[in-house]
């Protein structure tokens, strides 16, 4: 079957059969875009939305980007564009960078939990042959930190070390053996200080707080951040129909990425710093280097290498990056520092060890009248992302359910341990687990199905949460419905034999932080993309977005290919160097696809418009009636009237050369005005629901997860293969946290398992069969409707497993991870309580629906209709949290309900009732203590 050729003339060249040149013809063929596929492929109507004449269904309604669809790449499963480099070993990770004349840097680490450095004598180090440079904290006194409000780190310890493994000094030598030898030659005089390991102790006053925040320091405690948030009508919780109270202990977990940290620093002949690092957020490293080294940003080029896994663990600017730069400057040679696995655990930034207390209540109609959350989180030695984590532990629980009231107290304390930070599902994972298990418990009390309880309490699309978050698209209901069907839930729940269980859990996560960490310069975009198309037709996309394995480069290539109707192979994404990449705020908070792809679409539209204008000039047809399809532009009613992509391109380039366009994204104004209102704000949110099946060996306590049905609403799967991969990967990571992974701190406060043998990441044997279910709610502001799929899918697996263990055994577990000893202990306790001798005689729980069940099912059915109309914008009325309780969304709730609160500080009478973390509010900041004095 023939079609229209891409490049007239192409390989026929300018030669006659006899080899002589044809007069007026070039001796070589003009650049072509045809290659081995010289003919235009037919339009792929299956991937063009029905709203613009294609066959792709749009059940969630039309989308602003529908008219930019060409059926080229979006929605098609494809291998990541950098996968060939990875599977052939050609991807260059941090430790693969080799520069001429490089030397090796090593870091001297603290052997003490908490100590003051009285003196450091480096003379013996410097005298060792082969040592090229030595540096200590004195070489870099400027502080840095990922958040501008909490800069509490130095390149190396200044005055004090704050945990075993903290950086004390560093040395560069001709080889690794010499550098290691040099580390033993530092002479340091220490003054040991009293360490703090227990976060509860961190709430108390201490002679020597780990950090000192001056007038903002909270008494003499080690509290780094305290949060109070209260919304709604608290009177609703006073006479609950059902309630749940769970006190949780969640161990700290680490990202467990494959590639250890590695960095190479080089001051080039012009005196500019070239820093090679596997960073999720190169821009923040760029800023921090400038601060620490006292060098303007334009004299630093941060080169992001391939990143061998990040998951949040490579998103802080790191002290070893500063050390490499300092050593390289001193030594006058490139310096490479590569971590051992133990050092990876010492720099940490994993999920916070947490004590979480969740009380929840429901009323006689099965409505959730209140969430009361108290989260005490163990920050370790530095602030890192902790300021944000302190909020996220509470506020990200304010959806997907409609709540009568919400009360949260959170505190993050410094302890003398490796610093916690951001990890996949940042701040939301632990509380989500506690909340979802609490819902299960309340469902049991009310004798209703827990899925129906959820379905009857969901916030609809285009609504506002109790905390003021703007919900746009919302696929929660579909996700719940599909996992229910897929897992055959109705024939299994509470009906399986002892040792076999099934459980449900939901998730809710931000799709890009609405407030950037750095908001200077004012109104600077969150993401910017530049596109350049030269005469060869290849499209070069410059972006600062860091591909950390999640496929962000592929997503950019796909959306540009989609808009321009070009094969993905013609899109070349350049994203490694800050010198050539426009600023992108980094790969965190699941923001890249949403923000960067939006910027890329805008840039691609800029190029497309130039091409269409050229085609208009050539064909005489207005762009409105022109079609872009596979390297060709033609009149929509007659494909014969058209030009190839290259012809249009060359026309557009007349007198101007390469086409240039840029696109940027900045999230719209959103949210409330209370303190902390920006925490958790996002231009869109993802929703997910998982059902997990487990086998529990009731004699040993060993839990195996066997099957997972995992539904995730990612708005629109730009690359369904990548989304499936993210869902399965999230399941793996979440299963690790719920079943086996923990950072073990022994009785002396030392991290006991800083290695991959004893830090127990699930192996392939522990992986269940995962059935990924993609839900597409088509977000109105997402690129082609897309939302995040990288972090949210982790959340539901934890509660789904914990709830399934209850279904299998009748025992509620609230210590994570559920290692065999923890489960065994729980079962033994339960046996004693119930008077049963043999665990094999345990009776698993059963369910006989109570009177409330019918009402919930009916309400859920009504809400299903409501949600469909709102999703498709057929119902555009206002909806705010509270409508379920009978309030009018058009009138401020505080005017409708006496006692409706929206508070960021506790009332004096509340102080006595606050939970563990809440007790931080009993302390005063130094500035107020001075007032008192």
């Amino acid at each position, binding site marked *: 079957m023939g079609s229209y050729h891409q490049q007239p003339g192409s390989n026929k060249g300018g030669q006659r059969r006899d080899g002589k040149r044809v007069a007026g013809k070039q001796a070589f063929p003009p650049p072509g875009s045809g290659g081995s596929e010289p003919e235009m492929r037919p339009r792929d109507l299956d991937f063009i939305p029905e709203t613009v004449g294609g066959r792709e269904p749009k059940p969630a309604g039309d989308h602003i980007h529908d008219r930019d669809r060409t059926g080229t790449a979006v929605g098609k499963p494809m291998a990541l564009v950098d996968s060939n480099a990875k599977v052939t070993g050609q991807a260059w990770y941090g430790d693969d960078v080799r520069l001429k004349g490089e030397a090796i840097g090593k870091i001297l*680490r*603290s*052997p*003490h939990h908490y100590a003051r450095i009285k003196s450091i004598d480096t003379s013996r180090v410097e005298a060792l042959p082969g040592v090229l440079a030595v540096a200590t904290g004195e070489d870099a006194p400027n502080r840095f930190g990922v958040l501008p409000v909490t800069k509490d780190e130095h390149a190396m310890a200044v005055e004090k070390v704050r945990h*075993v*493994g903290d950086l004390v000094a560093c040395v560069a030598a001709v080889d*690794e*053996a010499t550098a*290691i030898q040099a580390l033993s030659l530092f002479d340091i005089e220490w003054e040991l200080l009293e360490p703090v390991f227990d976060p509860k102790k961190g709430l108390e006053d201490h002679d020597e707080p780990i950090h000192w925040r001056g007038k903002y320091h909270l008494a003499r405690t080690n509290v780094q951040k305290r949060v109070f948030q209260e919304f709604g009508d608290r009177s609703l919780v006073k006479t609950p129909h059902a309630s749940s109270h769970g006190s949780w202990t969640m161990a700290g977990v680490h990202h467990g990425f494959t590639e250890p940290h590695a960095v190479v620093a080089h001051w080039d002949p012009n005196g500019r710093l070239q820093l090679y690092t596997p960073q999720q957020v190169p821009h923040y490293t760029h800023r921090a280097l400038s601060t620490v080294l006292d060098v303007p940003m334009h004299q630093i080029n941060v080169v992001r290498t391939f990143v061998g896994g990040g998951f949040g663990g490579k998103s802080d600017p790191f002290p070893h990056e500063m050390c490499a730069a300092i050593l390289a400057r001193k030594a006058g040679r490139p310096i490479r520092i590569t971590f*051992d696995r*133990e050092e990876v655990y010492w720099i940490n930034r994993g999920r916070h060890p947490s004590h979480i207390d969740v009380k929840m209540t429901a009323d006689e109609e099965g409505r959730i009248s209140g969430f009361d959350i108290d989260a005490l989180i163990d920050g370790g030695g530095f602030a890192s992302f902790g300021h944000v984590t302190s909020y996220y532990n509470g506020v990200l629980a304010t959806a997907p359910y409609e709540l009568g009231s919400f009360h949260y107290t959170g505190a993050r304390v410094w302890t003398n341990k490796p610093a916690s930070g951001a990890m996949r599902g940042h701040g939301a994972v632990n509380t989500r687990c506690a909340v979802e298990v609490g819902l299960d418990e309340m469902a049991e009390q009310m004798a209703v199905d827990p899925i129906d309880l959820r379905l009857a309490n969901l916030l609809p699309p285009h609504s506002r949460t109790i905390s003021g978050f703007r919900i746009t698209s919302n696929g929660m209901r579909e996700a719940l419905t599909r996992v229910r069907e897929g897992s055959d839930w109705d024939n299994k729940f509470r009906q399986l034999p002892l040792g076999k269980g099934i459980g449900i859990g939901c998730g809710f996560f931000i799709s890009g932080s609405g407030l950037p960490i750095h908001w200077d310069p004012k109104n600077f975009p969150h993401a910017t993309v530049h596109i350049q198309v030269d005469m060869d037709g290849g499209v070069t996309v410059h972006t600062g977005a860091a591909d950390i394995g999640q496929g962000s480069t592929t997503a950019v290539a796909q959306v540009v290919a989609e808009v321009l109707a070009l094969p993905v192979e013609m899109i070349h994404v350049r994203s490694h160097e800050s010198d050539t990449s426009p600023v992108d705020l980094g790969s965190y908070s699941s923001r890249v696809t949403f923000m960067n792809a939006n910027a890329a679409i805008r840039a691609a539209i800029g190029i497309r418009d130039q091409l269409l204008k050229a085609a208009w000039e050539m064909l005489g047809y207005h762009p409105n009636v022109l079609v872009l399809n596979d390297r060709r532009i033609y009149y929509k009613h007659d494909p014969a009237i058209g030009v190839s992509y290259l012809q249009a391109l060359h026309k557009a380039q007349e007198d101007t050369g390469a086409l240039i366009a840029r696109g940027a994204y900045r999230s719209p104004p959103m949210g409330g005005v209370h303190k902390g209102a920006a925490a958790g704000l996002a231009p869109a949110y993802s929703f997910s629901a998982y059902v997990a099946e487990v086998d529990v060996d009731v*004699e*040993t*306590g060993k839990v195996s997860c066997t099957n997972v049905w995992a539904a995730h609403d990612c708005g629109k799967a730009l690359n369904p293969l990548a989304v499936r991969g993210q869902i399965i990967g999230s399941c793996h990571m979440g299963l690790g946290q719920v079943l*086996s992974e923990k950072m073990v701190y*022994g009785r*002396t406060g*030392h991290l*006991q*398992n*800083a290695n991959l*043998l*004893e830090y*127990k990441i*699930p*192996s*392939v*044997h*522990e992986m269940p069969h995962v059935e990924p279910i993609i839900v597409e709610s088509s977000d109105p502001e997402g690129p082609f409707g897309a939302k995040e799929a990288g972090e949210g899918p982790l959340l539901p697996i934890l509660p789904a497993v914990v709830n399934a263990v209850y279904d299998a055994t009748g025992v509620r577990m609230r210590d994570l991870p559920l*290692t*065999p*000893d923890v489960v*065994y*202990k729980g079962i033994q306790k339960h046996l004693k309580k119930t008077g049963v001798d043999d665990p094999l005689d345990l009776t698993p729980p059963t369910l006989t629906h109570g009177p409330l069940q019918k009402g919930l099912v009916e309400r859920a059915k009504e809400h299903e209709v409501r949600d469909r109309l709102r999703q498709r914008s057929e119902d555009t009325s206002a909806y705010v949290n509270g409508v379920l309780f009978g309030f009018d969304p058009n009138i401020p709730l505080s005017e409708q309900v006496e006692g409706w609160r929206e508070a960021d500080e506790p009332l004096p009478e509340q102080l006595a009732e606050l939970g563990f973390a809440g007790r931080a509010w009993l302390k005063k900041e130094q500035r107020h203590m001075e007032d008192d004095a």
Partner: protein
Amino acid sequence: MLMPPFELHHPKSVAEACELAGSLLEQGQAFDWVAGGTDVLPNYKWRINPKPHVISLAGIPDAFTLSANEIGCMVTLDTLSSSEIVHSLLREAASKVASSLIRKSATVGGNLCLDTRCFWYNQSEDWRRSIDWCHKADCGTGADCRVIPNQNTLCVATYQGDLAPNFMVLNASVLIVGPNGERTIELPSFYQLDGMKKNILEEGEFLLKVILPEDASQREGCYQKLRVRESWDFPEAGIAASWIPGQSETLQIASTALESIPKEHSEQIRQHLESNDGSIDIKSMSISIQKSVKPVNNTALPPRYRRSMVNTLTKRALKGIMKEN
């Protein structure tokens, strides 16, 4: 991680190996034997007792012996786990060691001579410095044991090999060779407290092969291993049992990963059979095995739990050999 430097020797025969060992001893040079290297070399990288000389057994043909009754120290666990000629219990046990990748290198000799493990000891040099060392690797400081504080006379590091209890319940012996000749020892006597001494090997000696009695093939065996993950993990507790079906007096039970050496439990079995008129009561037998072990807190799972699991594992192993559900 950088491997500390050492000189690697490749003797081609048992005699040459013994001569080399004797010569190094005379020179006062410390050395280790290495078979597959999956235990000793990671420890070297962590700077745990590295030596200036390492003698490889990989060039000694006798070390690769493999028959129903003789298994050389260089036979890999992968070979053992897929061999049709060895006892099925050994196949089962070998297949449960570590991961498939490690089993390709790890050997029978290495597993039997596995260094004892402890989370205060199996750490990097920086880490061990931060706890001011420990009794097992005190770096000349005379440091106390960190598991049982305030003493530095006993090391309670845990033996976590999988094969030893299985060889024990098949009544295996080991052939040891060294500069002063060879000797054959019943496997239970091969091990010797404490966690530092581990076994009776004298300086310069190595374990050449394991010898199984002719009647081993008549035995029915079962190995129960407790671990968090089904791959990689060392046993947190392990129970092997065997008998000649129907003959309760032939019952053998041995345990691992509970103390500093693997343990055979003939005394508990004898007492049990005496008090049960020669028959086996699985429940009480399991309890008596549980009572006979005293794990300490130095592996991934807490000792109290591991001890509780000895009961369950023994019960399952006994049911396994008796073909009960």
